[in-house]
């Protein structure tokens, strides 16, 4: 939760920076420049390296447009689903004591610890034609793997923990007093949730949703396994980037980077919204209790 702390008004005494601090700052800046900024610049430089015409042609390609649309569609389903799951999980974890609570906590983190490729393979093993439910699904004409539902499933899996992980610490800190008060005043469960709990955590929730969205749009590994790589049908934007890049010719590589820059823009937009939220509501994020 380092990002939340950054809003605290802590300042070191005196303006001077010691040598040790200076070295550390330089090192950090170097890392940021070399590992984050430079690759991002390369993406855009390569994207426009062959000129605007190649860039526009790459974006206008029907398969590329389908990929963009598909990526947005998958995120549009996966993110709200994860918002609901995350809220429910965080609510359970912080408002109730029950057997297996520890286990639930571990399960929420599972998508962070399991490699996305494994997540994808598990989807294939369960829902693939030779999988546990695959035969039944196939007999009923439902296609999950190598179709959009499989993409959504894999994406929901990998982007699952973000919302819950944002909410749980906050809900724990905030405690249950206000909910209890509402209950004694005769509020129903839904009323408590929508009028007390949700307003208290809404910025953390939004924050989690944005992170979850960035992950959903950028996911490659899990989606790659369940996609079948059908251009214009099941290729999401990251998969399309890879596929176009493997075309190998110089123009194909420029086109791949054009798509990659589009993907980067989509994710950057998400992060920008996140920054805006922090900026506008930073105080509430850091000290939600004082909001009233």
């Amino acid at each position, binding site marked *: 939760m380092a990002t939340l702390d950054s809003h605290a008004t802590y300042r070191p005494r005196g303006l001077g920076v010691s040598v040790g601090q200076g070295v550390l700052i330089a090192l950090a800046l170097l890392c940021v420049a070399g590992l984050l900024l430079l690759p991002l610049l390369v993406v855009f430089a390569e994207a426009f390296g062959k000129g605007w015409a190649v860039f526009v042609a790459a974006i206008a390609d029907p398969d590329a447009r389908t990929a963009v649309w598909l990526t947005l*569609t998958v995120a*549009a*389903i996966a993110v*709200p*689903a994860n*918002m*609901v799951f995350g809220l429910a999980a965080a609510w359970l974890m912080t408002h109730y004591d029950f057997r297996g609570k520890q286990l639930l906590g571990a399960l929420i983190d599972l998508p962070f610890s399991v490699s996305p490729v494994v997540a994808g393979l598990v989807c*294939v093993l369960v829902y*693939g*034609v*030779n999988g546990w439910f*695959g035969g039944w699904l*196939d007999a009923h004409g439902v*296609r999950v*793997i*190598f*179709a*959009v*539902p499989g993409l*959504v499933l894999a994406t929901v899996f990998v982007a699952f923990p973000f919302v819950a992980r944002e909410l749980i610490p906050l809900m724990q800190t905030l405690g249950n007093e206000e909910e209890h008060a509402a209950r004694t005043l005769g509020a129903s469960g839904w009323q408590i949730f*929508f009028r007390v709990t*949700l307003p208290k955590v809404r910025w953390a929730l939004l924050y989690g949703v944005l992170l979850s969205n960035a992950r959903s749009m950028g996911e490659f590994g899990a989606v790659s396994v369940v996609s*079948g*790589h*059908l*251009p*214009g*049908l099941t290729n999401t934007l990251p998969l399309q980037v890879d*596929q176009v890049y*493997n*075309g*190998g*010719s*110089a123009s194909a*590589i420029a086109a791949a980077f054009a798509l990659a820059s589009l993907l980067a823009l989509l994710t950057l937009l998400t992060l920008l919204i996140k920054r805006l939220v922090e900026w506008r509501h930073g105080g509430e994020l850091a000290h939600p209790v004082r909001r009233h």
Partner: protein
Amino acid sequence: MRRFPLIVFLALGAVFYGVAAQAQDHRLLNVSFDPTRELYKEANTAFAASWKQQTGKDVRVTTSNGGSGKQSRAVQDGLEADVVTLALAWDIDVLADRGLLAKDWQSRLPDHSTPYTSTVVFLVRKGNPKQIHDWPDLVREGVQVITPNPKSSGGARWNFLAAWGWALRQPGGNTDKARAYVTQLYLHVPVLDAGARGATNTFVQRGIGDVLIAWESEALQSQQELGKDKFDIVVPSLSILAEPPVAVVDKVADKHGTRQLAEAYLKFLYTPEGQDLVARHFYRPRLPAVTEKYAAQFAPVKTFTLAEAFGDWRQAQATYFADGGVYDQISEAGH
């Protein structure tokens, strides 16, 4: 906020509806291997035009590309390919073993169901600085060879068998000598890519290695893409005739009701128009007339077929590439 679960359901509904609606179209899915993407991109459009002319109906063919073995695996896992056009017969034999198509699939179309062929050649940097002229030169001191991993790449298996077959056919050649040569060869490989296209990119784009063992089609295309001033093609004294087969996946085609369309699609590859397209994408055509037209494009190569040297793909797969097979043994010995 109260309504958002409803929105989720609506969105889900819309997607399922969309998927179902797409399935109604006149569609064909061709699951292919890696280096055919340019060929089928054009062939799909040409076939659609010819089908429209013949029947007045629109058809849209989609091609999925990837390593041959991986693609075959996806079809086994339920990727609904109406036709498969893979790098080697074994990857389709596996599908037949699973009951997805008839076991005698290879006799259903002319030329053992391979409408085009290629052969294994060497791509070297301009001027051939390492003086690579034939197979023995690949295992000289200081020569780095790029070839993909035979466990995952179909193209790489043809490369492996070309090297093995050459060694076998040398004066005094036998299995032991072939094994010794191929073991040496893989010790000279610094990067084992998963697929043929990955290996080409490693050599051509990233500039790694002195020689790329590649299909002639890949080598010619790289040369065309990047200019003849950058790469030379070296034809070895003896190579293998690579025969990548095509087949209709019976079970899927019958389920989709696309059998007629799928068969027409594959037969289109044998027509003069299809053969011309094949040759333009640097695969060797089967039709003599087209072969003659493109004679200048293909250097004469002395080749042996898989059948002559190794029997069939089932045997070759079991001996060389199955788990614990010859390739596993030599790559373990190499460590």
